[in-house]
């Protein structure tokens, strides 16, 4: 199909916490993706980097930092920042350049080194920065927002902390055999429910950690893929980087308040639902076509929200879907076969690229002991701060 681009290669540096320069991880992931693609670095015409905001100037210009580290080859560069959605924004920049006929082969890299503990805003007195103000005025950390969403599942749908723990149990099993995951250890529901509360009702083991890590993909036009001998590559069918539609009535990080629906009624789809809907429309596919999904489980409860937002079930039905085993490997639509953020911890600019790497390996049948049987179509989804949608649909 004319709107498709090929994923020629996928590569990652394992997730962990070593405190090395982000470029070290990024180069390792880039080289792995190039080797997987069978593409020489000199043949890459565009490099897109996911920006990292905690690693100095080199992080602000991640695209050129990675290109330089690989050895200047004259490629065009771009750097994308869309918070947690930076990776898919980078994929979109590369994809559109390829589809425009301006480029045959592009490399997209996300890499990060993260500090310990809560992600915090940039330093200084920043009374006009909403991300700074939410900490200064309210003490609203990222987990606080996850706690708000989780509490609504309990009060509105009758969900329980045991349901949330079951998500962690599932994902910890999925990630056991993933060589790139940081946490490869089975976790019991009791361990989750005995861990300390961070942001009621969420406990420490309900919330994803922050990690170092890197992921990269090599993208090419379908014609180039065939020319290079990739007869049947995994294809990107859609990328959705939509923003909210006014009025956005769900309080999103890092905002202190929502839009007002006093004059204009809230749209039929919530922002998160609209992110998936736009991708389905572009791909000409629907939730019934999915073989698997990689969703952004910043918290266990948020994974359940995503089931509903991507159309796997109706509102309030996610817990049932989980307990029926539908989203476990072996079930109808495994969710987070990689182990998800529960097993990785978040490496912000790398994470959305890592989701695409996992789906690529699953669709190729290369996922080893976490392989989803007969995987044909996969979806990745997340949401970045400041209204960044991120959804990629891939197929064989």
């Amino acid at each position: 199909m004319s709107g498709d681009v090929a994923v020629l290669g996928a590569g990652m540096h394992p997730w962990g916490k070593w405190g090395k320069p982000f470029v070290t991880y990024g180069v390792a992931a880039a080289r792995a993706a190039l080797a997987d693609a069978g593409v020489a670095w000199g043949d890459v015409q565009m490099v897109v980097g996911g920006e990292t905001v905690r690693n100095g100037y080199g992080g602000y210009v991640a695209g050129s930092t990675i290109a330089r580290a690989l050895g200047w080859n004259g490629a065009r560069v771009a750097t994308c920042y869309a918070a947690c959605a930076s990776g898919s924004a980078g994929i979109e920049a590369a994809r559109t350049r390829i589809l425009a006929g301006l480029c045959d082969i592009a490399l997209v890299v996300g890499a990060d080194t993260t500090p310990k503990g809560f992600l915090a805003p940039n330093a200084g007195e920043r009374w006009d920065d909403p991300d700074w103000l939410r900490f200064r005025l309210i003490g609203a950390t990222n987990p606080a927002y996850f706690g708000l969403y989780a509490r609504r599942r309990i009060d509105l749908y009758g969900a329980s902390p045991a349901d949330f723990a079951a998500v962690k149990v599932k994902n910890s099993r999925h990630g056991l055999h993933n060589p790139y995951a940081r946490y490869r250890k089975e976790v019991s529901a009791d361990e989750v429910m005995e861990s300390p509360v961070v942001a009621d009702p969420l406990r420490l083991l309900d919330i994803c950690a922050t990690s170092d890590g890197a992921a990269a993909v090599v993208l090419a036009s379908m014609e180039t893929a065939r020319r290079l001998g990739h007869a049947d590559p995994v294809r990107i069918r859609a990328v959705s980087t939509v923003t909210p539609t006014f009025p956005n009535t769900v309080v999103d990080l890092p905002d202190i308040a929502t839009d007002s629906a006093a004059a204009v009624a809230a749209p039929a789809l919530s922002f998160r639902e609209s992110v998936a809907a736009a991708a389905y429309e572009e791909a000409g596919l629907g939730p019934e076509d999915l073989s698997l999904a990689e969703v952004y489980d910043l918290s266990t409860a948020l994974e359940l929200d995503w089931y509903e937002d991507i159309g796997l079930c109706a509102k309030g039905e996610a817990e049932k879907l989980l307990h029926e085993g539908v989203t476990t490997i072996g079930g109808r639509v495994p969710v987070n076969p990689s182990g998800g953020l529960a097993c990785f911890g978040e490496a912000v600019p790398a994470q959305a690229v890592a989701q695409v790497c996992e789906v690529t390996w699953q669709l190729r049948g290369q996922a080893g002991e976490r392989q989803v049987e007969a995987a044909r179509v996969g979806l990745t989804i997340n949401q970045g701060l400041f209204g960044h949608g991120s959804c990629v649909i891939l197929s064989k």
Partner: protein
Amino acid sequence: MTTQASAVEGWLDVAGNPALLGKKCPSCGTYMFPPTGSWCPNPSCSCDELETVALSRTGTVWSYTDAQYRPPAPYVPSTDPYEPFAIAAVELEEEKLVVLGQVASGYGVADLHVGAPVELVVEPLDNGEGADKLVWRWKPVAGADRR
């Protein structure tokens, strides 16, 4: 004692019955908080002369959580050792928007449920440099029906 004032100038009327200060579009009726823009956020409205208005002092809880661990700077704790506080997202009925805020001191998540009525109070931002800076807090309405 120095004069207490809104932690962020123009966000909070602290005289008399305290209230958040928002913007309202005289043309389409859309509200805005924080009051940081001078144009209407409704994309189908081109009005750029917004009025400053006091927002509703009461609302209902959209959701709530707490901070069992001390948030990182620039958050400044009010007590040493740190004591957890609760956060509520509160829907204002007339304005049809949700505003986050800490829950008034002395109240926690056990005092809240989705849909519970709350009212706005003002409290010092912290006990240090923020002692003369006032912020809004959401206080459960006494005697309101409990779940």
